[in-house]
């Protein structure tokens, strides 16, 4: 799926922890220091309480598939298809979903409720997230 023309995320002060956490194999989610709300996409202000005390911390890196799609269309000339993209409810971060491609199982094996764990692949300055099935664990 690597492609020289697939754009990478622009790094900002808010999102750098998320996109570079993979270097330490950590899924970094922003939390409010005042009310502990999980904030994603990350931003500098808590939308719930307006606190400016927002900072990233590592969560377990597991989650449950909320939905998914199997992409069959090669949108770019060098895109290998099919592959599944999962929208995953992240454990320990209420209300936060992380969307990422699925690796480690056949695309058609992905299902709603499936338990997943995060993995990362480096690309340029960032580490792109991937979801990989947790063996033998169903929700």
């Amino acid at each position, binding site marked *: 799926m690597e492609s020289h023309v697939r*754009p990478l995320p*622009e790094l900002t002060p808010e999102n750098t922890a998320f996109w570079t956490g993979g270097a330490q194999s950590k899924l970094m989610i922003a939390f409010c220091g005042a009310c502990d709300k999980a904030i994603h996409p990350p931003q500098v202000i808590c939308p719930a309480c307006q606190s400016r005390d927002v900072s990233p911390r590592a969560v377990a890196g597991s989650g449950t598939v909320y939905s998914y799609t199997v992409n069959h269309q090669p949108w770019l000339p060098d895109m290998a298809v099919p592959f599944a*993209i999962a929208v995953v409810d992240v454990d320990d971060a209420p209300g936060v979903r992380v969307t990422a491609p699925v690796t480690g199982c056949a695309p058609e094996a992905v299902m709603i409720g499936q338990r997943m764990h995060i993995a990362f692949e480096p690309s340029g300055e960032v580490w792109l997230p991937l979801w990989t099935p947790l063996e033998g664990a169903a929700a």
Partner: protein
Amino acid sequence: MKAAITGTGMSDIGRNTGRPAMLHLADAADRALARAGLTLADIDGICTYPGKADNSPGMSPLGTGEVRNALGLQTCWHAAVPDGPAQMAPIMVAAMAVMTGQARHVLCFRALTESSSQSAGRRASIPGAGRAEIGGWLSWLVPVGAMSAANWAGWMATRYFHEFGMTREHLGMVALGERQFAQMNPAAVMQKPLTMDDYLAARMISTPLGLFDCDIPIDGAAVVIVSAADAAQDCRMPPLRIEALGSALRSQETWDQRADLTTMGAHDAAIDLWSRTAFKPGDVDVLGLYDGFSIFVPLWLEALGFCGHGEAKDFIAEGQIGPGGRFPVNTGGGQMSGGRLHGFGLLHETCLQLWGDAGARQVAGAKTGVCAMGGGFIAGAMLLHRD
């Protein structure tokens, strides 16, 4: 509300027309002005979505500046609205402009050359493709392989199927109904019959959405003239009063974080729409619902209250939205069989119906129409009524 639509026009849309966007735009403007009984000298405002943009090939080749120049317009007011209640934003702000006296007749336009551009560049409608970096809400999608809106709509459909037992056949009924309408509309790009077997056999794009669940990139332009209520009285056609607008958005600007992804921004905008009028869904004669992907049609039907949450599959299976149905949707063939003018084509068709100008597909006596644009967090809705 003291604003009305007084004219609409569409160019001869098509695939790979090779014509400059400006010629499509000029044709659409001529036709809209002729319908309204106006001339270019009457136009004192101009508005568009999104403005000149190159975020995907041929997506928006014209801004207000070039169109003002080409048509020799001298305007009192102009604006482009890339960031608003879907592709309906320019119609909405034009209505506000005429109501606040900034202009009397506003030419709203949408022009696309996606068909020619994609063929020439061999690139699909991929936002940001070819760029090294991408920001904003797209940065949470494109870099992780969710490059196309087909993917985003795909996971919404997967969840909806899971919760409510919808199947591909239900979405197929939406596509087939639109094709049947298209066959009654000479301006629609797809005229061949479409069977359920054809639909189910077509190649998959992003599960559960296949080729015929997607709208069709075209070259073309549409113009909608929004006039002040008093100025509208001088026009050739009966004014189509903008009875209400709905723009609310109560979730984040994302395609994956909304708590219930079997709903969209559409649901917020639709509640907003009905809160501003005494009309009810049962008063509506004809619907133009955004169908960039087939799944948006049932979601908009539910959002607008034509059926309950989770009931759209039965509503569709009962034949309510196809030819002969009580609530006909996208009578011009929609974007899936008519071609993608980003909502402007749906609004044009809704207006034709309310003027009794829809030819073989005319809904008898149509006086009230709802038009809704957008998918995901992007949504705007409008109720039109001919007095």
